[in-house]
């Protein structure tokens, strides 16, 4: 009985541990709060390599969340808020980098891969169409070489 009571106590006490990232900020509306959540979800914590500032407990993330909140209250646009943080911490904090010459490959790789795949498929299809279903599998020269190999004349000099 004591053990069960103890377990229940432990489970109850564990609640705050899960809720530790939640700052107490007040918003005028649900939309505002949603906007804040979206913003902090796409900003990256500079201290912790691969975590957004919404998830991070690092002191710097706390400061960044406070700044996002402060700028939102001052009526800044999303772009202005992100720009203000990029100006301090660099492009690193953007989880969605701008499209420019440096990030061109990053954004274009999926499209290039799809185009490359389409190109390969097209070439294969066009070739098989051009040759037709009745085309012989081997050209004349190839057939001659195969015959020579099968006859055993090629054994001593692998090509």
């Amino acid at each position: 009985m004591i053990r069960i009571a103890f377990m229940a106590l432990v489970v109850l006490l564990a609640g705050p541990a899960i809720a530790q990232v939640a700052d107490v900020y007040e918003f005028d509306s649900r939309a505002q709060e949603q906007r804040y959540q979206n913003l902090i979800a796409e900003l990256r914590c500079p201290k912790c390599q691969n975590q957004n500032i919404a998830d991070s407990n690092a002191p710097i993330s706390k400061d960044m969340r406070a700044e996002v909140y402060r700028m939102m209250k001052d009526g800044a646009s999303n772009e202005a808020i992100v720009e203000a943080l990029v100006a301090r911490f660099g492009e690193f904090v953007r989880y969605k980098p701008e499209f420019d010459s440096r990030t061109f490959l990053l954004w274009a790789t999926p499209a290039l891969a799809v185009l490359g795949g389409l190109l390969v498929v097209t070439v294969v299809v066009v070739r098989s169409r051009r040759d037709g279903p009745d085309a012989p599998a081997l050209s004349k020269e190839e057939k001659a070489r195969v015959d020579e190999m099968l006859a055993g004349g090629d054994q001593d000099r692998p090509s």
Partner: protein
Amino acid sequence: MKRFLLFLPLLVAVVIGVVLFAGIGKDPTKLESALVGKPVPEFRLRDLHNPDAMLDQSLFRGEVTLLNVWGTWCPACRDEHDDLMWLAEEKGVAIIGLNYKDNREDALVWLDRLGDPYRKTIYDPKGTLGFDLGVYGAPETFVIDADGVVRYRHVGVINETVWEQTLLPVINDVRGNG
């Protein structure tokens, strides 16, 4: 043509290999400062030693300075303190301290006990200047030229090797151009 196609996978593998190899050995926790090439952000903060005196960005005019971000809560700052003393005393480097998210009493005890390598120390208990500088951990050290423009940021401790291989070349470069 067929021959060439056979070598295509090898070629692709080599290109990817070269690209990935270039990333080996780089420390991803060290970011280049977004402030390089920009002036030190405007600030008005109190002097650590003299609570009545206000300091601002004009502190960085006139000579090349190091701005060292530190706090008594930061173990690595303790590590580099002796090297900062060495830089200030032996090399005559002008170092400005930024006491970051700390409290005055602890900071003064620290400087009293370990020595004070700083020409001036800015007291920034809320970390506002640190935030504007993009400080994401201490210690960090900025090289600032005579016009008050940030030229380089070093993340992590300073020691003799870092000084000779990283900071001194940057400072010489800045002095040469300035």
